């Protein structure tokens, strides 16, 4: 992450080289799939070790409805977690930006949250909120989201340029006006960078939380149950669904970020 501006991956902004940015990865992917298929067939690798891409594709097309339902269930948990976690992270950062003492107080908590594997909380939360509820998963996703959003937002809130601060003082702007006119808009690109990082985390956390219990129906549960019943190709099919879901979240967050930072290149 650069120190002066919020970051969007360079490649996402690169123009003109459509071949390199689109075609090349597709060709690489296709080559790897072909290699994978050839290796499994050629060496006679058992299906329970690695199924072939064609087997997996067969399961994907045969269970499309179930994969979509699972994605919707896991996706909803991730989305609820993302929204709640983002709100908590952003509001917390605003409070910490205004009152430095709050930042000092919560810093150890944020550090603890950052290093703790959040999904480890899942079994405890299932006991607290009931194993038949999605609440535990949403909380896991939310907690995973809070830290990157909080840290990035707080960083952004501290990027107000001295000339803008002078300007607000010249205009005798109130603290609230200053927040709305300068501080929050300055932080916005950083908030979106945090959300982009958090979007993938939300999906991963919501999905992994399913491994530890709770109601069936989500992608995570489907992956474990397919694997438990030795239907490995189907398990991989759900993994494929999880990848697509993660990409959807990431790309949506990236699109929002790019839209809101389109005029930020120079002051």
């Amino acid at each position, binding site marked *: 992450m650069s120190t002066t501006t919020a970051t969007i991956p360079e490649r996402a902004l690169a123009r003109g080289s459509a071949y390199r940015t689109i075609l090349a990865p597709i060709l690489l992917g296709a080559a790897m799939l072909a290699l994978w298929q050839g290796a499994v067939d050629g060496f006679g690798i058992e299906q329970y070790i690695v199924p072939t891409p064609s087997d997996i594709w067969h399961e994907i097309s045969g269970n499309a409805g179930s994969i979509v339902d699972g994605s919707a269930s896991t996706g909803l948990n991730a989305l609820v977690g993302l929204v709640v976690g983002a709100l908590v992270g952003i509001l917390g950062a605003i409070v910490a930006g205004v009152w430095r003492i709050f930042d000092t107080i919560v810093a150890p908590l944020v550090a603890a949250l950052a290093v703790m594997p959040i999904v480890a909380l899942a079994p405890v939360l299932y006991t607290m909120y009931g194993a038949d509820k999605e609440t535990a998963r949403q909380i896991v996703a939310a907690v995973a989201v809070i830290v990157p959003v909080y840290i990035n937002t707080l960083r952004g809130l501290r990027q107000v340029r001295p*000339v*803008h601060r002078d*300007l607000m*003082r*010249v205009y*005798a702007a109130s603290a609230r006006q200053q927040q709305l006119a300068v501080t929050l808009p300055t932080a916005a690109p950083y908030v979106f960078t945090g959300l982009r990082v958090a979007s993938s985390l939300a999906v991963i956390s919501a999905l992994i939380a399913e491994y530890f219990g709770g109601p069936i129906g989500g992608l995570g549960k489907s992956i474990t149950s397919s694997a438990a019943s030795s239907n490995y190709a189907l398990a991989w099919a759900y993994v494929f669904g999880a990848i697509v879901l993660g990409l959807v979240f990431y790309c949506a967050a990236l699109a929002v970020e790019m839209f809101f930072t389109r005029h930020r290149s120079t002051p």
Partner: protein
Amino acid sequence: MTSSQAVQVSGVSRTFGGRKGASVTALESVDLTVAPGEFVSLIGPSGCGKSTLLRLIADLDTPTSGELSVFGKPARQARVDQDYGIAFQQAGLLPWKTVTGNIELPLALHGAGRSERKGRVKELLELIGLADFAGHYPDQLSGGMQQRVAIARALAESPKLLLMDEPFGALDEMTRERMQNELVRICAETQAAVVFVTHSIPEAVFLSDRVVVMSPRPGRITDVIDVSLGGPAERDDSLREDEAFFRAVAKVREALHGVPVTGARGVDSR
């Protein structure tokens, strides 16, 4: 202290406390008066305290000692009352707002109505010659255009005093001269007094009624030179090649360097 003066500075000093007791005297007993409608430039080498003096007048900083008033009020009151407009070396536009949004920022902050803002922005856009760029964002404008928007923003509330801290410092020479011509015209139209910080001698001479020469360590005023090369109508590009202009440039240069400039050699426009 008379309330008729735009700016009245008497015996103002500003000392910045350094670490371990070491302190820097940025300004030492400075006296300066700026009359309404007068254009005064502050010129001097880096560290002479010219920007500090401007920031004191703007109440972005407070003097260690001395008296400072703007239109007869304490600087703080003048700031709260929005008696002056200000432009910095960096245009300092809000990149997420359009040209219109940037110009009307002070009006919006002070609760001006939508239609009032719209009318004022239109006038100002005409004044700075950017009527076609109302909906553009700062990153779509050149440096000179950005600076013109910043000047329009400073003029938004029709202040009777304009404070400018090297507003053209980051511009190339051609743009700079064009901006100077425009500033002369804008000042004539708005009748505002101007305190203008610069380190370009020709710029100070071209624009000013009086040039205040400052020297560093400690920052103080060493000379005040009356320039008054005529009204705004006479201040055009031909003035830049005028004998009187060169003489005034030479005079300011002598005051800056503290030695008389000899013969024709010392006279050039830079």
